[in-house]
């Protein structure tokens, strides 16, 4: 689908859950059918609204994981303990259930098929979700060389691992680096630790390649990585960030 430049208000639509896939012990991908969905750009998000029988509502933002061309709108949701929305989405919801979504949203943290420049994707934890949408979109509609640096706590908390391994071999010009912060698998080349200047230097495009950088993760992660990229010489104008808050999702 071309860019989703649909004019007019965007308001709530009913989403029907068609598929539920486990990604990790605490995260699931929901495949949603949304009547009238206009298509989306890689990197966009939706707001999800749950309404209790007494009328109480809770709204959270979740990034879209699927490429625009797909039949279903896929969200990957990580459980936030004590959250209001994610426990339902990760533990209770089943195929056939319905809730409301508003989207697609956001015209800035997006990658569009016309972009030819190198792409640097840097994810912290479930911040990989919108970046996976970009990985998927570029595989079908772009030739921009891309690198993904994915920082994650443990091997058990990696989303999309089989697909990432497959795509790194099958997709032209995609390089994936996993960096573990708490526990690495046996034989991994780097001991567990946070993303630092050394890793940025080793696993990401140099600044003179002038990539567009997309950084998504918890607020502290994004602050730290954006600072490292600027220190490495990247133009702040080419660094796009998306932080999620304490409530999970993207807001």
């Amino acid at each position, binding site marked *: 689908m071309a860019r989703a430049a649909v004019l007019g208000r965007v308001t709530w639509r009913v989403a029907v859950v068609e598929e539920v896939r486990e990604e990790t012990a605490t995260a699931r991908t929901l495949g949603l059918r949304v009547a009238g969905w206009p298509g989306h750009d890689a990197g966009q998000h939706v707001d999800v609204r749950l309404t209790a029988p007494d009328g109480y509502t809770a709204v959270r933002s979740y990034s879209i994981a699927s490429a625009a061309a797909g039949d279903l709108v896929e969200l990957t949701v990580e459980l936030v303990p004590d959250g209001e929305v994610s426990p339902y989405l990760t533990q209770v919801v089943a195929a056939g259930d319905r809730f409301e979504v508003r989207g697609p949203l*956001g015209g800035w943290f997006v990658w569009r098929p016309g972009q030819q420049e190198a792409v640097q994707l840097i994810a912290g934890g479930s911040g990989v979700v919108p970046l996976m949408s970009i990985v998927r979109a570029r595989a079908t509609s772009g030739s921009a060389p891309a690198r993904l640096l994915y920082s994650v706590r443990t091997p058990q908390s990696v989303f999309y691992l089989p697909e990432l391994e497959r795509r790194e071999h099958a997709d032209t010009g995609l390089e994936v680096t996993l960096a573990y912060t708490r526990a690495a698998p046996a034989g991994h080349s780097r001991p567990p630790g946070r993303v630092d200047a050394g890793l940025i230097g080793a696993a990401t495009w140099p600044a003179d390649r002038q990539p567009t950088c997309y950084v998504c993760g918890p607020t*502290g992660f994004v602050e730290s990585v954006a600072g490292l990229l600027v220190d490495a010489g990247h133009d702040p104008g080419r660094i796009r960030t998306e*932080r999620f808050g304490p409530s999970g999702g993207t807001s």
Partner: protein
Amino acid sequence: MSSESPSFLDGNAAAGPLREIFAVDLTAATGQCAGCGNRAVLARARLYARAPGLVVRCTECDGVLLRLVEGPRRTWLDLRGLTFIQVTTGP
């Protein structure tokens, strides 16, 4: 997420309530801060969402650019912190 982390998000997280009102995505628009004159894409501004509404602040001077509260039947929007908003309307 540790409690000492900053409590703000990016302005792009305000896209939903703004798209209820506007026909274009305002988070991709450029705005000028009425306080310090800084011009930036609104998606880059700081969004404080742990409040009854949303508060978007300038990254340079911390001045309030935009306040928005969504109620069940109406939305309140205060844009007085923005001198102008520049929206891309064509390719």
